[in-house]
């Protein structure tokens, strides 16, 4: 299968990519790892007039500590994130999410920025980025803005990303020392996309759960932070009963998806199960 014809433009820098985006207009598509865009183009579900290849922009591929944040360049591959010792020390759920994506070849090409822009409802990244209170940096030829992950995801394949904007960076606040986090998922056995993915990050002090962040992907058309679960556990001691009671509240506030992989009821059940597993893992 061959994509329909398009003009190929190679961007050597962020500046060049932004100029090309401004020049080529709404008919242009950014190409990063190509592992969502090219399959769609081959099936002619997407036929852009121009493709702006940012895969060679070295300055968009990095993981580093910057003050109180860990920052990840948009073109950093899932594979590089999965191997990051810096992330694994400070925010393990990020590394766990990366390692769970697709297979080794997909992780070698696919990028975090591409996954966020694509906003597949079954994508792995949103859960851990929501639980980690990430911010997403968007650049265009007229400047730069930073959006909280909660405001970025807006629906099925829909985000706050403007037509002339490029995702350049993902910023994660470094949690304080008494924080543990994890990402667990029930995967679609062939593609390994998340049928239900749950990230949990909990900061403890004096034996009780001080700050609880729980977020889901795959459950609803938009990934979400589950405040009912969070609030049920915040201020509580981490007992089996408290964990169970909090997990029972999972996915109550959203429209749960149903499809040929998992019905609505089954997904809702899985959300509770995976919330419990995630909470147990961080509180054990």
């Amino acid at each position, binding site marked *: *299968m*061959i*994509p*329909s*014809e*398009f*003009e*190929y433009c*190679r961007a050597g820098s962020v500046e060049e990519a932004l100029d090309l985006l401004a020049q080529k207009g709404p008919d242009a598509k950014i*190409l990063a790892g*190509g*592992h969502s865009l*090219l*399959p769609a183009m*081959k099936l002619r579900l997407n036929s852009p007039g121009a*493709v702006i*290849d940012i*895969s*060679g922009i070295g300055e968009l591929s990095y993981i580093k500590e910057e003050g109180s944040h860990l920052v990840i360049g948009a073109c950093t591959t899932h*594979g590089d994130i999965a191997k990051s010792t810096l992330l694994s020390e400070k925010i393990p759920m990020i590394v766990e999410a990366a390692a769970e994506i*697709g*297979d*080794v*070849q*997909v992780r*070698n*090409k696919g990028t975090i920025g591409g996954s966020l822009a694509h906003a597949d409802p079954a994508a792995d990244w949103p859960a851990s980025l929501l639980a980690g209170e990430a911010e997403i940096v968007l650049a265009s030829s007229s400047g730069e803005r930073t959006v909280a992950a909660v405001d970025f995801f807006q629906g099925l394949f829909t985000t706050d990303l403007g037509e002339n904007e490029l995702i350049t960076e993902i910023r994660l606040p470094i949690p304080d020392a008494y924080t543990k986090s994890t990402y667990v998922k029930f995967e679609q056995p*062939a*593609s*390994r996309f998340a049928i239900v993915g749950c990230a949990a990050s909990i900061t403890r002090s004096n034996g009780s759960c001080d700050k609880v962040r729980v977020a889901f992907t795959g459950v609803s058309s938009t990934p979400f932070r589950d405040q009912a679960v969070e609030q049920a556990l915040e201020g509580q001691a981490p007992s089996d009963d408290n964990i169970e009671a909090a997990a029972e509240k999972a996915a109550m506030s959203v429209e749960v998806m149903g499809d040929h992989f998992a019905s609505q009821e089954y997904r809702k059940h899985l959300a509770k199960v995976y919330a419990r597993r995630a909470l147990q893992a961080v509180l054990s």
Partner: protein
Amino acid sequence: MGVPISVTVNGQHRESEVDSRTLLVQFIREELRLTGTHVGCDTSSCGACTIIMDGKAVKSCTVLAASANGSDITTIEGLAQNGELHPLQEGFKEEHGLQCGFCTPGMIMTAVQLLEDNPQPSEAEIRHGLEGNYCRCTGYHNIVKAIYHASRKYKEVSHG
């Protein structure tokens, strides 16, 4: 629309002009005539088209040839040196790691990166490392044995 590209394939420098929509696997098979790299699913799933690009296993049906500009590529044809099989090729031969052979080039190229990252993998690690490659014949057992065979050979080579 012609896009000039320059790549190194199996140690040889190649310059060409490709159509913007040419996939890397098409370039490798149809222009370079290196037909050891196979197309199974053409939908990024089966791994038959796996090659090594800048040290990493990638599915060449899901990469534009134009994007490969400047890269260093190894295909199955580039593994044997001076008529001597690569330890992985030998492992597949010794352990009956193939039946029809369709998946084999992709399996071997994925295993090249697997052993580079982890020269002495456990059986579970080998199985996990092959999650992006499908085989419709062997049931995988002998493929796992073949890779294990190669890992022991690597050990002999590196420890004398």
